[in-house]
């Protein structure tokens, strides 16, 4: 059954600066099919999607829609070509009604809007996405995230989209909600629309996709019919080989427990958390967006409230409610968004590195240039930051160097626990190994590191102990030696097919 290719991309290349995101990728999409895009973080699937959505332009290669060559210069362009992109970030204005949100930004609804007229216009689209029972005149902010996502899809349909791109639509949804979204996707495809479905969850692929395109390191494989696939095959093709030398050796000996969580309940986790971290240990949380790992880390950092249970350090229960108190206890935290709260982009590295430690560099309130310089240089040396760059602004560094600064600034206060989210997000491959090494060196000095990452190889390669998360539940806790990559991947993407404790 070979239907015609609706969208075809041939040897498309795209790089961002020195980072090659796509190295000549071929891709095609047929009419009325659901095509799943799979791949690890940074494999290139989001770049490809952005090219199709008109959010970025390819460096070379061609894009054809319905046999005609097109240039998609802007999202508007793509929309006119019948392509609608539903991103992970919602574009629903909560203070407007459902109907208004659907019509917002379109150009075909006339200058005067009344609830009744709009309701009549949007009703068919709401029904298409299975929201026939939602009152079009109710405020969109009152809907669940899943329903808001469906409203977004309805908006795209009202603009006559032939190709729908859904970028991890289910990441933040509960099981019931996911079923709903998947149902709509299936239905839309059966009505002749094509869907590009980006996901990390393998189960969904088998449930709804007709074909799968797998991405690895900026290249794509030929699309495969899902019917002919099994999960082992899928995992093997996604993984490929990565250099194991990237990761430093694991800890040979762990110290005394430093932090323990007892029946800890936090928002974002469905079950209570029990775990222990020892000095010198790297504890790695693996899981995808919305899995709950961040929620645990942020609770330890004093950012998210502890609903129940306790956190104990060195056996003593601690009760900190804000980052300041956590820092006093020796808990340092690096979020997954450096630019937002990890660095001072507009200040130089000296000031960044000493920002946690102002008291030490300013005896009596006056900043001692000598102490400041000494502290900054010492930290820079530890983290392999070039001394001659200390005067440049943090915002001007590469992602890797920024991350080193974000981590390095904490070392000045000699914390006992370092919490890191996504330690190498936006960091190029070369600098990754270096950051891994730094984290290991820190633990060798007796520090405990808890990190969470959606990069499975990173968790497995770096950690001494691994905890896997799936949708607000812990799937397993074990020594890193006791689990291999395919098993870990199954845990975080599709744990149902996996009997606990069995490593493939």
């Amino acid at each position, binding site marked *: 059954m070979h239907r015609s290719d609706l969208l075809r991309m041939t040897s498309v290349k795209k790089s961002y600066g020195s980072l090659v995101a796509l190295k000549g990728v071929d891709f095609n999409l047929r009419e009325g099919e659901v095509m799943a895009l799979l791949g690890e973080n940074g494999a290139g699937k989001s770049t490809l999607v952005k090219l199709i959505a008109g959010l970025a332009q390819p460096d070379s290669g061609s894009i054809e829609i319905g046999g005609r060559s097109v240039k998609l210069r802007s999202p508007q362009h793509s929309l006119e070509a019948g392509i609608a992109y539903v991103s992970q970030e919602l*574009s629903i204005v909560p203070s*407007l009604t459902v109907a208004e949100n659907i019509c917002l*930004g379109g150009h075909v609804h006339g*200058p*005067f*809007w009344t609830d009744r007229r709009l309701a009549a216009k949007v009703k068919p689209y709401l029904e298409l996405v299975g929201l026939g029972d939602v009152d079009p005149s*109710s405020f969109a902010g009152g809907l669940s995230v899943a329903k808001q996502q469906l409203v977004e899809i309805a*908006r795209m349909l009202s603009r006559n989209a032939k190709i729908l791109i859904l970028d991890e639509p289910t990441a933040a949804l509960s099981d019931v909600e996911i079923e709903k979204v998947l149902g709509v996707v299936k239905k839309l495809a059966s009505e002749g629309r094509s869907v590009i479905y980006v996901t990390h969850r393998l189960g969904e692929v088998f449930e709804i996709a007709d074909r799968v395109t797998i991405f690895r390191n900026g290249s794509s494989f030929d699309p495969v019919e899902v019917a002919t696939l099994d999960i082992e095959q899928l995992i093997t093709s996604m993984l490929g080989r990565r250099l194991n030398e990237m990761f430093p050796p694991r800890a040979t000996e762990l110290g005394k427990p430093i932090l323990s969580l007892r029946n800890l309940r936090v928002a974002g986790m469905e079950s209570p958390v029990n775990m222990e971290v020892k000095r010198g240990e790297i504890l790695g949380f693996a899981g995808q967006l919305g899995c709950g790992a*961040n929620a645990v880390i942020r609770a330890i950092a004093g950012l998210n409230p502890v609903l129940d249970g306790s956190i104990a350090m060195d056996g003593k229960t601690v009760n900190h409610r804000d980052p300041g108190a956590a820092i006093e206890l020796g808990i340092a935290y690096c979020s997954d968004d450096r630019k937002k709260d990890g660095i001072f982009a507009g200040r130089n590295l000296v000031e960044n590195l000493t920002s946690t430690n102002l008291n030490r560099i300013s005896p009596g309130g006056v900043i001692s240039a000598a102490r400041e310089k000494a502290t900054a240089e010492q930290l820079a040396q530890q983290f392999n930051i070039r001394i001659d760059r200390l005067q440049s602004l943090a915002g001007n560094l590469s992602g890797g160097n920024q991350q080193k600064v974000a981590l390095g600034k904490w070392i000045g206060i000699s914390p006992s626990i370092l919490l890191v989210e996504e330690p190498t997000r936006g960091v190029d491959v070369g600098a990754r190994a270096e950051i891994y090494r730094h984290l290991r060196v820190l633990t060798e000095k007796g520090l405990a590191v808890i990190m969470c990452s959606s990069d499975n190889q990173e968790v497995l390669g770096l950690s001494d102990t691994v905890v896997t998360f799936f949708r607000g539940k812990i799937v397993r806790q074990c020594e890193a030696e006791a689990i291999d990559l395919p098993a870990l991947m199954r845990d975080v993407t599709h744990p149902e097919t996996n009997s606990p404790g069995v490593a493939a």
Partner: protein
Amino acid sequence: MSRREIFMDVMFRTGLMILVYVGFALFIPSYYSVRGVAALLDGAVVIGLTGLGIGVTMLAAEFDLSVGSLAALIGVVTLNFINGAEVGMVTAIVLGVVIAGVFGAAQGLVIAITGINSLVFTIGSLIGLRGLALFMSGENTVNIPVQRLEETDFLSASVLGIFSIPSLVMIGAFVLVAAFLRYTVWGKEVLAIGGGRTEARAAGVSIKRAMVVAFAISGALAGLAGAISCVKLGSATPLGFDTLLLSAVTACLIGGIALEGGRGTVTGIFVGLLTLRFLVGGVSGLGAPFWMQNLAVGSLLIVVIVAQLSVRQLKSRHDAPALPVH
């Protein structure tokens, strides 16, 4: 917020307004009379029109600090039309409003294109417009010649007992703006960029157009306030309307327009306006000197700001577990 919650919010504020009214009416006899209420309403026109305009920019999560200077300038300009070009009163007012609206639109466009914080940008126009008002008036009070003063009488006549032409114009403006925000695409876009700037942009809303519309409305209404009140008075001072901004903001905030944008209703602004008016009228009705009014408005605004902060903090504590975690 659901519709019901919004309704309850407005009801709550209306209750507060009635409370203020009744409180003062116990001590001030004129609060009972039709004439007294007419005076209260008529006295609310300038603040009401300006507050409505500022309210629209606040709903778009922007702010227009230049309204006071603009009102003064348009007052002067309108009277210049009457004196120099010898046009009729209504024509002059309309011309003034158009000029103010065009200026507002241009201001909105520049703010949208450059992306400069509107609070900062409008400080510049606040200074410049005041200078222009001084310049256009020759730094003197501009007066309508005595022989033409009777042409302005229609603005002071009472209509149906409790209204006047200016207060009817104000009420008309409230109805029009409410309808505009409720029933037109452009109005919805203004609300959209206030309720979620990034979301609206992602949905394909033209930020530029929405900003132009919001600032044009705020400019036109400030101009209308300046023109009507100066024509009615028969004179315009270039240094007038200097505390207008404060009162207008206060009316909006009492009326439930959120400073962070996107939340509030036109009805709310009207209720806030009357609350403020009853309070200020009451304070002076009780015999307090005029400068006590400023004290009262300032204190009231501080109370409102602190109350909003507390509510927000309580809410965020309450809502914390519902935050999406990723």
